[in-house]
C-alpha cells in the first residue's frame, strides 16, 4: 500500500469534516470510522481539523469582545450597533485594535465576528465584560443574546443561568427577558435562571429590579430588593421569598465552580449535578429523600457521590456515564 503524505491525509480529513458537518448516513458514518481506523495519522489529522474549527468558534465567540477590551469603544458604538454593517468601524476604532485589524488583512468578515451572543458548554462558566461595562457571568449550558441600543440595554436569556452585574446608567435601562418574564434593572446585581421544566427564577443580590410577565394576567409585576428571590411558575402569580446573604452566596457558588447544598434531598442534588456534566447520578427511590449539606465541585459528580455515600452510609456504583446511589447491602431496615 502506498503511504499517503500528511497533506493528502489532511485533504481527506477536511472532506470528512465537511461531509459529517451536514450529517452522515449510517453507511457513510461507518466508512468514516473505517477510514479513521486505517492509520493513526488519519485520526490525528481529523482531530486537528476539529480543533481548528473549535478554535475558530472560540475566537469567533470571544474575539470581538476581547479586542474591544483592549480598545474601549467610542461613544458612537451603540448607534453603530443599530446600523449593523458600520459597527465594525466603531469596534476597531481604537489604536491597538486597529493594529490587529491591519494584521488581519481584509476585514470583510468582521460584521460576522461582532455578533453578540454568548454561550457556555456543559460544565463551563464564563465571564464577559459587555460594552457598557456591565459584567455578565454565564453558568453551565447557558446562552444569551445581547441587543444594545442607544435607549436601552436588552438581553435575552435563551437558556441556563446568568448573573448580571449591571453598570449604572439611568438613561439606559437594563432589560432582561427570559421566557415570558421581563426583568428591568438600573445599577444592580442579579441572576436569572431558565431551566427546562422549572419556573423562572430571579435572584437579586444588590439594588432593585422589577419583574413582570405581560402575557400572564394572573401575575402582577413585583419589585425585588437585595437578597430576594422571585419564582415565576407558568400561568401563576410570581412568588417572592426573602433570603439570607449566606443563602444568596450559596446560590452563586457556581461562579467558583462550586455547587452548594443545604439540606437538599439526594434527588435534588442529582438534578443539580446533571446541569454540569453528562454523568448521571441515579438515586434509588428508598434513599432519594435523604439530605446532603456541603460544598462540592460542579464538574466532579463522582466526588460528590463518594462523599454522599460515605456520609450517609450508601452504596455508590460508579460507571463511566452513570453513578448509582442506593441503600448499602446489609444496612438493615
Amino acid at each position, binding site marked *: 500500500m502506498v503511504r499517503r*503524505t*500528511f*497533506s493528502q*491525509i*489532511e*485533504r481527506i*480529513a*477536511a*472532506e470528512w*469534516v*465537511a*461531509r459529517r*458537518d*451536514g450529517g452522515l448516513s449510517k453507511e457513510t458514518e461507518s466508512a468514516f470510522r473505517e477510514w479513521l481506523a486505517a492509520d*493513526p*495519522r*488519519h*485520526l*490525528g*489529522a*481529523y*482531530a*486537528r*481539523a*476539529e*480543533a*481548528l*474549527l*473549535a*478554535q*475558530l*468558534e*472560540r*475566537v*469567533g*465567540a*470571544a*474575539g470581538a469582545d*476581547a*479586542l474591544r477590551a*483592549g480598545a474601549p469603544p467610542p461613544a458612537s458604538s451603540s448607534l453603530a450597533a443599530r446600523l449593523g454593517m458600520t459597527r465594525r468601524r466603531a469596534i476597531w476604532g481604537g489604536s491597538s485594535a486597529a493594529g*490587529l485589524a491591519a*494584521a*488581519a*488583512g*481584509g*476585514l*470583510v*468578515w468582521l460584521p*460576522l*465576528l461582532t*455578533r453578540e451572543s454568548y454561550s457556555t*458548554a456543559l460544565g463551563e462558566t464564563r465571564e464577559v465584560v459587555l460594552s457598557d461595562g456591565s459584567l455578565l457571568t454565564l453558568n453551565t449550558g447557558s446562552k444569551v443574546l445581547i441587543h444594545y441600543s442607544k435607549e436601552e440595554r436588552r438581553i435575552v436569556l435563551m437558556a441556563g443561568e446568568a448573573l448580571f452585574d449591571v453598570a449604572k446608567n439611568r438613561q439606559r435601562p437594563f432589560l432582561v427577558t427570559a421566557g415570558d418574564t421581563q426583568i428591568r434593572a438600573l445599577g444592580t446585581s442579579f441572576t436569572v435562571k431558565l431551566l427546562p421544566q422549572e419556573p423562572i427564577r430571579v435572584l437579586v443580590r444588590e439594588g432593585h429590579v422589577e419583574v413582570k410577565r405581560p402575557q400572564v394576567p394572573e401575575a402582577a409585576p413585583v419589585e425585588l430588593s437585595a437578597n430576594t428571590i422571585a419564582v415565576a411558575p407558568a400561568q401563576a402569580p410570581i412568588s417572592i421569598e426573602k433570603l439570607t446573604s449566606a443563602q444568596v452566596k450559596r446560590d452563586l457558588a457556581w461562579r467558583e465552580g462550586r455547587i452548594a447544598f443545604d439540606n437538599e434531598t439526594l434527588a435534588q442534588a442529582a438534578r443539580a449535578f446533571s446541569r454540569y456534566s453528562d454523568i448521571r447520578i441515579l438515586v434509588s427511590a428508598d434513599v432519594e429523600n435523604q439530605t446532603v449539606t456541603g460544598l462540592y465541585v460542579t464538574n466532579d459528580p463522582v466526588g460528590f457521590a463518594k462523599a454522599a455515600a460515605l456520609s450517609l452510609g450508601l452504596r455508590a456504583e460508579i460507571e463511566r456515564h452513570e453513578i448509582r446511589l442506593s441503600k448499602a447491602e446489609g444496612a438493615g431496615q
Partner: protein
Amino acid sequence: MEIDFQDRGRWLARNLLPHEPVLRARLRRMNVYGLEVDDVIQEVYARIVSQPVLDAIQYPLQYAIRTATAIAIDHMRHTRVVPINAVGSLEQLEISAPEASPEQQLEFREEIAAVNRLLAQLPQRTREVLLLRRVEGISQRETAARLGISVKTVEKHMAQGVAALMALFGRGGKSAHRTSTPHNDIEDHG
C-alpha cells in the same frame, strides 16, 4: 472507542493547538532522519485524542513533547536508522520541557490575530461559509440559503476552508508573518 470529536476538538483547541508552534520547532530541531514533522504532529493528535480522559493531562505541552518523543523513538526502532546525534537530540527535546512560558504559548489575543490572519487568506465565500456554520452556528441549509448557493457547494467550501486552515496553521512557526515571505498566492479579498 467512540470519540466525541466536537467535545475533544474544544479541548485540543484550548490545550494543544496553541502549543503546536513550539512543538513543531522542537521537532524540527530534533531532525530525525526520515521523520516528517507533520507526520509526527498528526500522530501526536491521534494519541492524545484517544486518551480516555483528556482532563487528566495537566501539562499539555509537556505531554505533547513526551508523546512526540515516543513517536520518534518508535520510528527509529521501526526503521533501524538511528542517526548519530539522535539520542542526544531526543534528550534535548525532553530536557527543559517545563510548561510553556507565557511567551512560548500563543496568547489568546495572539490567537485571535492568528485566526484573523488565517481567515484573511481564504477566498471570501469559503470564509463566509466557515463563519456562518461555525461562528454563527446556523445550519448548512440556512447557510446555503443566505449565500444563495447549494448545500453541496456549502459542503465544498467547508472542505476547502478546513483544508486551508490545516495547511496554514502552525507551518513556518508563529513568526512567519513577520518575516514577510511572499506566500500571498491567494488574492486578498479585503
